[in-house]
């Protein structure tokens, strides 16, 4: 406790006990930390290490130069960014109204909707990509339905392009987006909404000026999560893009499978890692700024 008190025998004992306890607590976390070190820290460190050596085995920026100068690499980065951004927009556009609707339902019914949203979690990414392939293919269910309804004469190219890639990614990210957003909406005092209603605000105005601003931190957090996770997608673009959508992860895998290109694969990996980290930091900063600005307003 405070240093002014004479340290009796009891207190030295207590202090030692506390130290032992903290060391023990750390020791309990140690097995997990070892696994993380073996599977994440060392491998990622290895990527940094490999990316720093050129073809002749000397230290050089060669790999990064190749990645930054090649037009094909630039396009891959832009594609990855665009696909991720479209996925975020789709998630926000669909997920926010849906979460607001579920939030307005009585708890029992809302619970059913949450369970339905969680359902796809139990289906593997591969299975879902594969199912979309079947639905979207030229003679698939959707094209057949469109033709039967007379909406189109020839089957549309729905699979193996940007549309199917973003659709598949949105399908995977929506539950991950909706849950935190719904959590944030749950924390909004319903009295606020009723107060706005009682003071004569229209439903639209209440949503715009009261509900959405209060839900904003959750929405932003969800959007950042979706964006960062989308940057690393591999399976869905590889299957649903059908080679027409090249993202960073696919390029890394390809550089690696022709073994000569370990350096380039590593450099791409390091860039993806830095990109992801920077965006995460930026997003967190933006969120803090918004929250900070709001606190400032409250005090004013």
């Amino acid at each position: 406790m405070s240093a002014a008190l004479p340290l009796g025998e009891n207190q030295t004992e207590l202090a030692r006990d506390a130290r032992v306890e903290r060391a023990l607590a750390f020791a309990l976390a140690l097995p997990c930390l070892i696994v993380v070190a073996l599977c994440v820290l060392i491998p990622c460190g290895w990527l940094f290490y490999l990316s720093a050596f050129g073809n002749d085995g000397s230290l050089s920026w060669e790999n990064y130069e190749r990645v930054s100068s090649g037009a094909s690499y630039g396009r891959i980065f832009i594609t990855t960014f665009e696909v991720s951004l479209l996925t975020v927009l789709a998630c926000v556009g669909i997920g926010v109204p849906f979460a607001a609707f579920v939030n307005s339902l009585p708890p029992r019914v809302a619970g059913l909707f949450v369970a339905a949203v969680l359902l796809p979690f139990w289906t593997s990414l591969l299975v879902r990509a594969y199912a979309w392939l079947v639905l979207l293919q030229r003679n698939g269910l959707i094209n057949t339905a469109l033709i039967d309804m007379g909406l189109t004469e020839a089957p549309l190219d729905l699979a193996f392009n940007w549309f199917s890639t973003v659709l598949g990614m949105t399908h995977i990210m929506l539950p991950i987006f909706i849950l935190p957003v719904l959590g944030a909406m749950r924390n909004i005092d319903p009295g606020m909404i009723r107060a706005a209603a009682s003071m004569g605000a229209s439903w639209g105005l209440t949503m715009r000026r009261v509900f959405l601003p209060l839900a904003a931190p959750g929405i932003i957090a969800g959007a950042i999560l979706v964006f960062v996770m989308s940057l690393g997608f591999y399976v869905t673009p590889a299957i649903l893009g059908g080679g027409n959508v090249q993202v960073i992860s696919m390029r890394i895998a390809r550089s690696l499978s022709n073994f000569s290109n370990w350096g380039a694969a590593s450099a791409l990996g390091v860039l993806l890692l830095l990109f992801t980290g920077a965006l995460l930091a930026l997003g967190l900063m933006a969120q803090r700024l918004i929250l900070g600005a709001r606190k400032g307003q409250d005090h004013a």
Partner: protein
Amino acid sequence: MLDGFQHSPLMTGLKWGLALLLVAFLAAPSFIVVPMSFSAGEFLQFPPQEYSLRWYRNFAGSITWTSAARASAIAAVLTTLIAVPIGVLAAYGVMQLGRRMRMLVGGLIVLPAVIPAILIAVGMFFVLARAGMLGTMAGLVLGHVALAIPVVFVVMTAAFSQFDFAQEKAARSLGASGVQVWARVVIPQLRGSIMASALLAFVTSLDEVVLSMFVSGGDNATLPKVMFASLRDQIDPTIAVVSTVMLAVATLAVVVMVRRGAVR
């Protein structure tokens, strides 16, 4: 509704319609693979023209698929058996740390969930290749444990934050040993969360594609790896069979949990 606004029936109906449409969108892919797996045809078609067990026989008769199913089952069980105990201990330990250490250690433990899977896969490929462990079950399970740890850790941290640690002190003051406290007080109360995290760890390993693609091979190639490879080459309804089997395993696991009252 409860928000004090008068909503027109049309608006309400529209909202319900759109919400149900979204639910259908989310659920559809999980369900269409089941009828497709019973197709009698050569190609993927939904709905199938005729039904048969042909592709199930094909699955059961193929060494590639059965060996992959065996490898996936072993990897998922081992991953669960390793990731759950160490994840639970870590979540408990991290709760006892000071604020700063808690942020640091907790941050490190959830790292595998934040870093793109492809990077972990490529990095582990290098490391395991150097260690001569490429294509071994041990290497694969190690990687899957790393991916399952954040899931277990997050679920258990949430559980421990609801847990009243005074009970632990009470049990100790009444003479229970540390082991007894865990076996008789802590674990029984957290049974639901522990089982939920075990389920999630199991499914994490079962569904994992990217890491398996790089570090598993030969006899230890997992179902997702074989599936991914065959999705690129030729697509036949055997994949629908595998999907249905995986869906059934995951559903069965959830049902067992729910019946035991573990998952709310």
